[in-house]
């Protein structure tokens, strides 16, 4: 996996395309807390060789150039990554949401975004006296992050 600077993202992908890696296999993101990693896997269809490229953007204001010019198939992947992780792909020809219909206050796949159902549903194991004796933060059910509860 090759890590490139966010400023060189579009250049690195178009260079890969010029070397034959014209087929976009996937583009997605991983939330690492203070930064979002965006990953692209591209293939050379004549050899089926693949390369993975990754870059990082700040989660505060994640902005990355679109790679649709070199890899047109990235159009849908970037739209999905935009709505799910809140990454803006500058220069995208059609940045409408791809899948989501209703407006989500925060991008659903960011770790800081609470899973509302999990917060609202009483955890059946909370009746355990051993759970009740723990400090409040450790009483949280599995899959509920303390930052969701501490958020305003």
């Amino acid at each position, binding site marked *: 996996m090759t890590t490139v600077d966010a400023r060189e993202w579009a250049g690195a992908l178009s260079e890969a395309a010029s070397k034959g890696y014209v087929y976009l296999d996937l583009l997605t993101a991983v939330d690492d807390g203070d930064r979002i990693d965006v990953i692209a896997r591209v293939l050379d269809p004549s050899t089926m060789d693949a390369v993975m490229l990754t870059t990082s953007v700040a989660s505060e204001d994640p902005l990355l150039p679109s790679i649709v010019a070199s890899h047109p198939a990235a159009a849908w992947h970037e739209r999905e990554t935009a709505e799910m992780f809140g990454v803006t792909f500058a220069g995208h020809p059609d940045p409408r949401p791809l899948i989501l219909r209703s407006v989500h206050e925060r991008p659903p796949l960011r770790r800081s975004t609470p899973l509302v159902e999990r917060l609202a*549903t009483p*955890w*059946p*194991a909370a*009746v*355990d006296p051993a*759970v009740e004796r723990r400090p409040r933060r450790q009483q949280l*059910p*599995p899959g509920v992050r303390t930052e969701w509860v501490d958020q305003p």
Partner: protein
Amino acid sequence: MTALPRRGVIALIPDDCTSCLICVQECPTWCISLDSHTEQVAEPGARRPRTVSVLDRFTIDFGLCMYCGICVDVCPFDALAWAPDVDYSAASRPGLVQDTGTLASWRIDD
């Protein structure tokens, strides 16, 4: 028709359940709930009465259950077990929640 391995439903042996809540904590879909209370049991020869948990109600919401079997595996007392019955449909959403009596009535695989 070839005989395939079959996944059944999850049954409870109430007398073996100590209400320890391990299964309730481990269930990924939060589909198990139980109510219990404690009682003091005087034992002949013992200086103090023993505190035991008594199970009042045990339910599995099969509407949520994904039949992963984690509860069967984690129960330290083998109080949960697979039974060969099929999934029971219901005319209403609450009808998918099975309680102690039904869970205990299912025949367990040997």
